[in-house]
């Protein structure tokens, strides 16, 4: 008998027992839907992390002094053990190959004031390169210019959070905002970046020229400087990092490589993605277990179905069904259940994923891989768990089967 004929028989037999077929399918449906959803959520989380890391800038290297260093036997001259100077930034930019941009970062805090509104926020003194490194653009107004840095102009660019909280409906561009009571002209508002990897608001920020920050806000005594560098390519990060360390050691007598802390974006990205990968694996294995349970459900029902249909099998074999026909019929029934269940599961998983994406504003993504894996899995489950009951059915003794009550 032809395969198509057996498929027809199997389908008819499933159609005759709609409730049983559906209940069996349910296990696979839920399993596959869970796998799809979990993988999509995992994928979404990974994308969010990636986006956040990319929002840090491209090929970023951060250099700062190591206050924890035991070997640092340098005189504690100015400030509190800080070594880096603005001249270091120039040197890094001019002397090291593969450096695209470099900027100092001078961090401070201050009360921000516009008319009668107050806000307390971080203020960063940076060079114009900083905008390039962090891929920052102005949403309103413009960014400050190198000339502003040269002239230590009292200008600033503000993040979206500050614009919203301090200015409300007023367009901040061109307005005077006071930082520690010193008036600054707001040149522009930065395009929103959202939260960073640590969950900090990246839009709660005021950027001023580092020269202005140093002279007007911080003073040389209390400066703590970080250098942010952007390498030309991902491949050169490692090399540039080494060169920077060497250069800084040469520029500051008596320091070792321990005196400086260098963090690269790749380090952070690696850690973050390994965390989210672990999460995905965890979620997928939980979902996988439910798929396995679904498969055992199929085997269960198919075994019951064999017992329930011993007589039917006997009749079929008496009127000319070969062992092979019976075996195939039962395997096809199981495989059909799992494939149909798989398809419904994919649809359900897609629906669940969309709901999760909508309600949590996540960029969840169903990958072809997750569809492939769940379809393959459900086929394998169908064959694997369908085979044993099918074999049992095909090996029934004809007389016993016919006489079975």
């Amino acid at each position, binding site marked *: 008998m032809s395969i198509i004929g057996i498929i027809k*028989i199997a389908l008819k037999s499933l159609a005759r027992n709609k409730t049983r077929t559906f209940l069996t399918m349910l296990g696979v449906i839920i399993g596959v839907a869970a796998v799809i959803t979990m993988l999509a959520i995992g994928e979404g989380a990974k994308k969010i992390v990636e986006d956040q890391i990319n929002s840090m800038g491209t090929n970023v290297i951060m250099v700062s002094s190591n206050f924890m260093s035991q070997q640092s036997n340098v005189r504690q001259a100015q400030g509190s053990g800080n070594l880096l100077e603005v001249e270091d930034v120039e040197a890094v930019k001019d002397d090291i190959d593969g450096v695209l941009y470099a900027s100092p970062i001078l961090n401070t805090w201050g009360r921000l004031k516009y008319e009668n509104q107050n806000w307390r926020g971080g203020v960063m003194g940076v060079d114009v390169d900083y905008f390039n490194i962090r891929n920052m653009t102005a949403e309103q107004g413009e960014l400050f210019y190198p000339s502003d840095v040269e002239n230590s102009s009292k200008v600033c660019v503000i993040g979206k959070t500050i614009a919203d909280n301090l200015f409300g409906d007023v367009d901040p561009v061109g307005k005077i905002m006071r930082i520690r009571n010193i008036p600054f002209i707001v040149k522009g508002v930065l395009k929103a970046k959202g939260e960073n990897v640590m969950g900090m608001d990246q839009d709660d920020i005021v950027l001023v020229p580092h020269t202005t920050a140093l002279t007007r806000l911080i003073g040389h005594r209390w400066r703590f400087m970080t250098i942010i560098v952007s390498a030309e390519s991902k491949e050169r990060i490692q090399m540039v990092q080494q060169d920077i360390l060497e250069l800084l050691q040469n520029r500051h007598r008596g320091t070792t490589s321990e005196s400086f802390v260098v963090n690269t974006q790749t380090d952070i990205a690696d850690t973050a993605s390994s965390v989210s990968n672990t999460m995905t694996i965890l979620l997928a294995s939980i979902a996988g277990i439910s798929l396995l349970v679904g498969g055992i459900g199929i085997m269960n029902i198919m075994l019951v179905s064999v017992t329930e249909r011993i007589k039917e099998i006997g009749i079929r074999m008496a009127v*000319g069904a070969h062992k092979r026909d019976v075996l195939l019929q039962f395997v096809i029934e199981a495989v059909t259940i799992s494939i149909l269940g798989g398809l419904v599961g994919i649809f359900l998983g897609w629906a669940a994923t969309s709901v999760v994406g909508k309600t949590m504003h996540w960029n969840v993504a169903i990958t072809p891989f997750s569809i492939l894996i769940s379809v393959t899995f459900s086929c394998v489950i169908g064959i694997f768990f369908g085979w044993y009951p099918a074999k049992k059915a095909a090996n029934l003794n004809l*007389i016993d089967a016919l006489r079975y009550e």
Partner: protein
Amino acid sequence: MSSTTLIRTQGLTKVYQMGDFEVHALRGIDLSIEQGEFIAIMGASGSGKTTYMNLLGCLDRPTAGSYELDGIAVHEMSSEKLTKVRNEKIGYVFQSFYLLPRTTALENVELPLLYTRNMGHKERISQAMEALDVVGIKDRARHFPNQLSGGQQQRVAIARAIVNNPVFLLADEPTGNLDTRTSVEVMALFQKLHAQGMTVILVTHEHDISRYANRIITFRDGLIISDKPNPQPRNAAEDLKTMPELDLDR
């Protein structure tokens, strides 16, 4: 009717192993059945008649002896080939009908054809409808077994048995689950098929039923104790006329 030998068994023996016991169900049966005969196999339970029927029907294999069906040595065949023999040469009618539940009469009759050589859907349906027509139940083709009376179900089973044009019909207590009138109706159907040239082998323990056959073979303790022709079999169609109509649906 040409008298060709259809079935020949020689020294057919069947021993069942029941733990330490050996049960000799058949102790060497020599029997020849010609084409076109209508045979009743009689015997009490435990006489070996059902075992013999299982062997004739290729549902089981003998412990010893030979069985030739239509000139082929069936006892030497592989189970694969036996399946083909069952499908093509034998039509079965069982005591409790053995129709597939939740399956229409038509689909039940189609069943043996599904396992035959590749046959088109239309051809299959027309052949199944023809068989239903022969047993006079064509109008119930789309009914499910639980919507049919016992007599009707047995007719569907007979239609299934003849749909593949087998060389003989093997009926195991076909009237065992039926009332008297319906039993005679079914016997009338067998007699009609026999008149058209079909070989019919009937296993029964009812004397009344065996009287419709042309030859009566009696088993006891695994052996044939009598094998007599029945020169004047009762005519079921005539008997029906003398019986009261019970229910038109029956």
